[in-house]
């Protein structure tokens, strides 16, 4: 297969775009696309201070790389979760992020959850009822809390995450299956900041996961190939595999699903559902971060319970 732009050997064929590209043209195409989405959805501008949440994976390190190539000022945030899984998963993820930052002369902020909160994510999950024994719920709650705190305390304008189209479509699919209209109303490339919540953006939201993985490979980014050990059997992966089987028969189906959803949302299909519980945000009595619950936020409630159970067990 030949590159459509120069006729050299292609390294990737993107059937949904009817576009095959060689390595150099693909490495130009990805930042061009990301910039198009950054501008189209008014994510940030050249003067913005951006905090990129990095995990050591292909998407977040690819995003950090692309933002740098586009000339944006972006610092990285790595959250150490203390997940081992027999492979030293968190330690290896952190090494990948630190190596990337050092190689590119970028500033990386590291927050170690066990140092700050007193327990790793797997330990915390084992001491709470949240998530029914799976650490993913405590993990997600903790990451969102830390990301918001670091972004606000650091005076950043925006938090950028490496969510790709497959991530977005998997969430959309799950929320549609459950008719979670309130969540559907708020999903999109940009989540506006308000009442202490940092503005969140997803510059890769229209790039297929296959494209972000290919970018990391062709660009020579050293990322962690292993999946989080706790992600095995995750519903999100099941949804992605299901959607990929549909995409195989109908190239472009995932992108059409997402774009049609964004159009419907823009036309007000979910407007009523958007007037939900977030209208009554208030400050957590312990940490001051916004919460819908009276008193403590879910993060403080969960971690206070973890620390209380740790004291009992000593």
């Amino acid at each position: 297969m030949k590159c459509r732009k120069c006729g050299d050997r292609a390294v990737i064929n993107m059937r949904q775009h009817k576009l095959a590209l060689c390595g150099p043209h693909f490495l130009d195409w990805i930042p061009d696309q990301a910039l198009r989405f950054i501008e189209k959805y008014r994510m940030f501008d050249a003067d913005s201070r951006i905090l990129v949440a990095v995990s050591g994976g292909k998407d977040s390190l690819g995003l950090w790389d692309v933002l740098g190539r586009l000339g944006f000022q972006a610092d990285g945030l790595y959250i150490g979760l203390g997940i081992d899984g027999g492979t030293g998963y968190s330690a290896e993820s952190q090494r990948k992020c630190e190596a990337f930052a050092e190689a590119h002369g970028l500033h990386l902020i590291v927050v170690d959850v066990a140092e700050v909160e007193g327990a790793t994510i797997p330990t915390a999950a084992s001491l709470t009822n949240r998530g029914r024994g799976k650490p993913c719920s405590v993990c997600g709650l903790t990451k969102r809390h830390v990301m918001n705190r670091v972004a606000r305390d650091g005076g950043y304008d925006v938090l950028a995450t490496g969510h790709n189209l497959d991530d977005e479509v998997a969430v959309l699919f799950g929320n549609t299956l459950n008719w979670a209209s309130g969540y559907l109303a708020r999903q999109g490339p940009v989540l506006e900041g308000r009442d202490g919540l940092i503005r969140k953006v997803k510059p890769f939201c229209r790039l297929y996961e296959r494209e972000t993985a290919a970018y990391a490979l062709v660009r020579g980014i050293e990322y962690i190939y292993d999946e989080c050990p706790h992600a095995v059997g995750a519903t999100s992966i099941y949804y992605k595999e299901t959607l990929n089987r549909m995409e195989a028969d109908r190239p472009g189906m995932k992108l059409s699903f997402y774009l049609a959803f964004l159009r419907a949302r823009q036309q007000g299909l979910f407007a009523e559902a958007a007037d939900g519980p977030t209208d009554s945000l208030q400050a957590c009595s312990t940490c001051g971060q916004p919460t819908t619950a009276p008193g403590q936020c879910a993060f403080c409630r969960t971690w206070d319970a973890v620390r209380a159970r740790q004291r009992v067990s000593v």
Partner: protein
Amino acid sequence: MTVTLRLRDKDYEVRAGMTIRDALLQIGIEPDSVLPTRQGELITEDEILQEGEHIRLVSVISGGSLPSDPLGLGMRR
């Protein structure tokens, strides 16, 4: 002679002479879920498999705690 396709730590053996796409479908791997590499170089799925070669497949799917709630406020559901 066969060709070896390796995904993570698992090897699959297929006949030489077919395309990577056909080989992936034969062993039950969705072609869009992996990226094939030959000697470290990314290649497209229409490439013909050569006798005795080793193709490394890079999985593109990652997952975990994708939040249903974009605001992530930990609301009780």
